[in-house]
């Protein structure tokens, strides 16, 4: 089958403003959108720029807007998106070139929530044990691959780049609800801010966009409740 791709193009060195280019690619229904982008880059236009790394839905490099929905290009199949495909960069972050955005504001928010384990003792003599039930408590939020599909699908983030965003909160949740971690109160204090949990208006775009199917709005809801009740249920 022939697939027509309408791709967002912007070269800061030559273009005053972005435009769209159309490409027609021969493809199978089971091909991924990333395969089509590779085909265009290899055989039609070598200047087409996008991020990709593992190409298997693990590294989170190739999040983009495909037919208006944030998806990983390596997980979106032609049969799921149809034979007319519009590909654009994710929204809310500055475009550097074509489908590549500046991820630094996103990672700044990620770093702001202390996304690392804070243990009790400095040099513990033995490993810290955790029951399967306690591990299960934060299992869902361990799956995040930092692709930014959630944060850049959120209207609150589009409205204000200062909003910490769903992804940072998912990663905060992963440590806050870890029974071994000692910095939950500190992280909740960071999130208890006008640009923290309160900017989430339960729109659910993030949950729909997540390629790992993390229940993001639920995680944010649990953080809101933890802040209000000062308890980690």
């Amino acid at each position, binding site marked *: 089958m022939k697939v027509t791709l309408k791709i967002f193009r912007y070269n800061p060195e030559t273009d005053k403003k972005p435009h769209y280019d159309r490409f027609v690619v021969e493809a199978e229904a089971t091909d991924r959108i990333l395969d089509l982008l590779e085909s265009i880059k290899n055989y039609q236009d070598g200047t087409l720029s996008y991020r990709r790394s593992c190409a298997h839905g693990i590294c989170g490099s190739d999040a983009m807007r495909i037919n208006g929905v944030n998806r990983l290009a390596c997980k979106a199949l032609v049969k799921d998106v149809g034979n007319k495909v519009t590909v654009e960069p994710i929204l809310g972050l500055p475009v550097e070139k074509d489908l590549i955005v500046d991820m630094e504001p996103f990672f700044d928010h990620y770093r702001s929530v202390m996304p690392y384990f804070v243990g009790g003792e400095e040099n513990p003599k033995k490993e810290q044990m955790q029951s399967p039930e306690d591990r299960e408590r934060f299992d869902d939020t361990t799956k995040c691959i930092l692709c930014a599909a959630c944060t850049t699908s959120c*209207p609150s983030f589009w409205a204000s780049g200062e909003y910490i965003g769903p992804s940072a909160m998912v990663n905060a949740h992963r440590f806050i609800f870890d029974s071994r971690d000692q910095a939950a109160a500190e992280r909740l204090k960071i999130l208890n801010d006008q640009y923290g949990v309160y900017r989430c208006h*339960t*729109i659910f775009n993030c*949950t729909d966009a997540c390629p790992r199917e993390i229940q993001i709005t639920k995680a944010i809801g649990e953080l*809101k*409740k933890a802040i209000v009740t000062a308890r980690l249920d």
Partner: protein
Amino acid sequence: MLAWILHRITGLGMIVFVSLHVISSFFTQEMGSDWAIAINTVYESIYFQFFIVFCVLYHGINGIRIIILDLWPRMLQYQKEMTWLQWLVFVPIYGLTIFIMIQKLITGG
């Protein structure tokens, strides 16, 4: 996202209605001006009434759904089911209200 957008639109709809009502009441009482009465006829029209009933009912029922989700975060994973339930509550109430309004309009009650 549709529920979130509709929540904003219906909120704005209620602000428009209340503002028009306050402005028209004020000018009618103070000056008895014709255009104040004209504003009155805008929100008293049956189409505006259909719209405002939609706004009040949708905003209220959607608000209850959001409050439930905020109080019991576990329900957040059933958000799609909650949204369908919301429409299931909304449609009969709105339908019945519109039916009664049209019936009164026809019978002049």
